[in-house]
């Protein structure tokens, strides 16, 4: 398995654990009232699961298993794959931090951090689509 696939899958597993942990935290009533940040974790829980776990696992396995792009570049453009990894994960991490903070204590700084998180994840997704599209070939 290529190194970046291992990184995608291990990060996806970490996100799964974190998502389910967030799922536990938001069910503990005294904690959600005492710590407002925890009470605002619902969108983080869902996106750690769907973006960090489901999508990231798909991205890692697709990079590994999809038909070869060419003999010289069997997995397409490595730069796009690395861009996907960093953009997606930095964007997701920024979201995990900023979205609940903005919900409990709105500040322009957190707001713009959320905008940056949105753009980074979006660009990461587009980099994946651009790298994967030419590998979808009919045999």
């Amino acid at each position: 398995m290529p190194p970046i696939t291992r990184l995608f899958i291990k990060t996806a597993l970490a996100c799964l654990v974190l998502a389910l942990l967030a799922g536990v935290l938001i069910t503990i009533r005294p904690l959600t009232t005492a710590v407002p940040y925890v009470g605002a974790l619902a969108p983080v829980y869902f996106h750690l699961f769907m973006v960090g776990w489901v999508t990231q696992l798909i991205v890692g396995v697709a990079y590994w298993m999809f038909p070869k792009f060419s003999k010289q570049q069997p997995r397409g453009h490595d730069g796009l794959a690395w861009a996907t990894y960093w953009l997606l994960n930095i964007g997701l991490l920024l979201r995990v931090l900023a979205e609940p903070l903005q919900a409990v204590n709105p500040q322009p700084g957190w707001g713009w951090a959320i905008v940056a998180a949105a753009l980074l994840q979006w660009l990461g997704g587009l980099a994946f689509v651009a790298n994967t599209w030419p590998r979808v070939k009919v045999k």
Partner: protein
Amino acid sequence: MPRLSAWFVRAALLYLALGLTLGMLLLWNKGVLISPSIWQLLPAHIEFLLLGWTVQLALGVAFWILPRWQTQRGDVRPAWVAFVLLNFGIWCVVLTPWLTLPYWVLSLGRSCEAVAAAAFALHAWPRVKPWVESN
């Protein structure tokens, strides 16, 4: 990969791009307000990413890699029906609130998605078999 898988996977990638674009606008709007009406994109964001991206990718890859009979994948017609109905259903569901279409269009869309799932199951069911079986 077979032609139908390529259609499923390409469609899934397009829905991923669309769903992420809507998600980007929704999240941006949460951080710095663009317009309160952007929140109305949420159902389409969910529909594109759950049904259009993850379900469709799973169906495309399943059609490609599930066990075959020699080189044959059995009756592929229900799988093609699934592709058409799933995509028709997604757009019915997404466009109903956007274009204020009658409510029955939403029901039709959901029905098409359900029939697509059943059609794909009909195709895939006999292919879920021990790999040592050769016919």
